[in-house]
């Protein structure tokens, strides 16, 4: 147990392929953590970094290049708790979905030119490659959830992260429902809560950036959106943008056939 050892727990923060959004959130909250942890490594924020065993490794981004994978495996081997932070690390985000929609070689050549040396691989979340102890989604992550996760891990306890749908959070804030009142294609019913219902609170539709809630009812969501007059391809496109696993949509292809 960490506290038994009477030493200060160590953490390290890394980014793979992502937008550094989570790294920024972590950086902003670092002053709250530093009284309780020793920061061993945070290449995004400091130049002197150590490659040593750590208690908690926080990793942002998806695995999209062979060197991401090497780095991930290396970090896993020396971390007690490996935490995937942010949608990219937890679900794979837009890059994982892109790899499902388009051919990888065509994407690389159209972006970097035909004879690019970029080594890209199919983009995937961390858990597809290594054991992940805690998954904290977000885009970017919610700071208080993040601090709660670290607080639990510092005591060697698994954190309590719920995956209730965003609608519940939205209703608790008493927002007028944009799906009902404005006919916007809000994905709140199938998206995990945690952001504080940011988009609906501003009158905009949730586009699902936190990834799916627990057991999302994708078929029912599609039915509702189709009835509102959205096209099948648009609905499927929206639902899958942020890397939700495709087996959640198996039955939806039947809708397409029914539509034709």
């Amino acid at each position: 147990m960490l506290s038994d050892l009477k030493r200060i727990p160590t953490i390290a923060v890394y980014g793979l392929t992502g937008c550094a959004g989570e790294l920024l959130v972590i950086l902003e909250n670092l002053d709250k953590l530093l009284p309780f942890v020793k920061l061993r490594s945070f290449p995004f924020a400091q130049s002197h970094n150590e490659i040593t065993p750590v208690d908690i490794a926080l990793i942002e981004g998806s695995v999209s290049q062979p060197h991401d994978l090497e780095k991930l495996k290396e970090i896993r081997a020396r971390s007690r708790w490996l935490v995937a932070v942010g949608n990219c690390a937890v679900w794979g985000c837009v890059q994982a979905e892109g790899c499902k929609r388009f051919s990888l070689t065509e994407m690389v050549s159209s972006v970097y030119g035909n004879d690019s040396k970029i080594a890209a691989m199919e983009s995937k979340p961390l858990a597809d490659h290594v054991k992940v102890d805690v998954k904290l989604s977000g885009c970017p992550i919610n700071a208080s959830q993040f601090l709660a996760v670290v607080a639990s891990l510092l005591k060697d306890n698994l954190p309590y992260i719920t995956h209730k749908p965003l609608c519940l959070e939205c209703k608790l804030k008493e927002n007028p429902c944009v799906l009902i009142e404005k006919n916007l294609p809000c994905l709140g019913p199938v998206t995990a809560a945690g952001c504080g219902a940011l988009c609906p609170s501003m009158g905009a539709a949730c586009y699902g950036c936190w990834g799916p809630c627990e057991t999302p009812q994708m078929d029912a969501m599609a039915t509702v959106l189709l009835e509102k007059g959205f096209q099948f391809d648009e609905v499927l496109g929206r639902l899958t943008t942020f890397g939700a696993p495709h087996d959640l949509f198996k039955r939806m292809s039947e809708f397409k056939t029914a539509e034709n």
Partner: protein
Amino acid sequence: MLKVKQNLQSPFIPHWAIIRSITNLSEDNTLFELQIEDGDFSECKPGQFVQLWLPGVGESPISVCSAKVGETIELCIRRVGRVTNALFLLNEGERVGLRGPFGTGFPLEKYKGKNLCLIAGGLGIAPIRSLLQHVLLNREDYGKLILIYGLRHSAQLLFRHELKHVLRRRDIEVFISAEEIRGPDLPPMSMQLGRVTDMLSLAPVDESYEIAICGPPVMYKYVVQGLKAKGVKENSIWLSLERHMKCGMGKCGHCFVGGRFTCMQGPVFNLTELRFLPEAIECEGTESC
């Protein structure tokens, strides 16, 4: 305006208790003896439960595991998730919180003077142990006594030393079974290969018996079928149900079974009541028994 009692205390505030001893029972099951620091738990009855609180982690409903609760209380706990894992990291002398006792417990008054058959599956032995202790302490109040205890693996046997003593008694018949018996450390007692339901068919249970059952949800349907086949009356069958519990006092709604609060009107129900509650003993789950 609604009237409120002066100095109304919040029922959510736990009482402190200190871990006095930790006894490992099997790989993931441990008996915790807690010294109660404040609050009175002496009213705890077999079949009731307490809410065990680990500050900063959360609460879990845990059955009262011994017949008598005084300055200390015994809880037999399996490590399955967040709260229970955190508990297994604690040492003797550390503090936890307790609320309760909650629920109705086994109908001790109705059992008086009757033949009794206690059926436990897996961790269901925890509440059954408190009932067994109670009956053995007041042996003359009850008729014939049968204990059926079923396990998945022989290695999961709990309370083996206590059971050894029980096996030596002449006033109780004991049937213990496991679906898999293996390992170098064979259990030091007569354990048979099979399921709870197999033991039930061997046991001399008949319509004169009152029954107490506790085990994993999937077990109930088959055990009830077995009991009925032996002529046991529905109103003699008492089952302890496990539901998700948060508050323990009929407020949070998590423990609903059909139309009842398991935490208040249960967790022990008579089968005749359960027939009126949809979803009471049917469920979707992964384990067999």
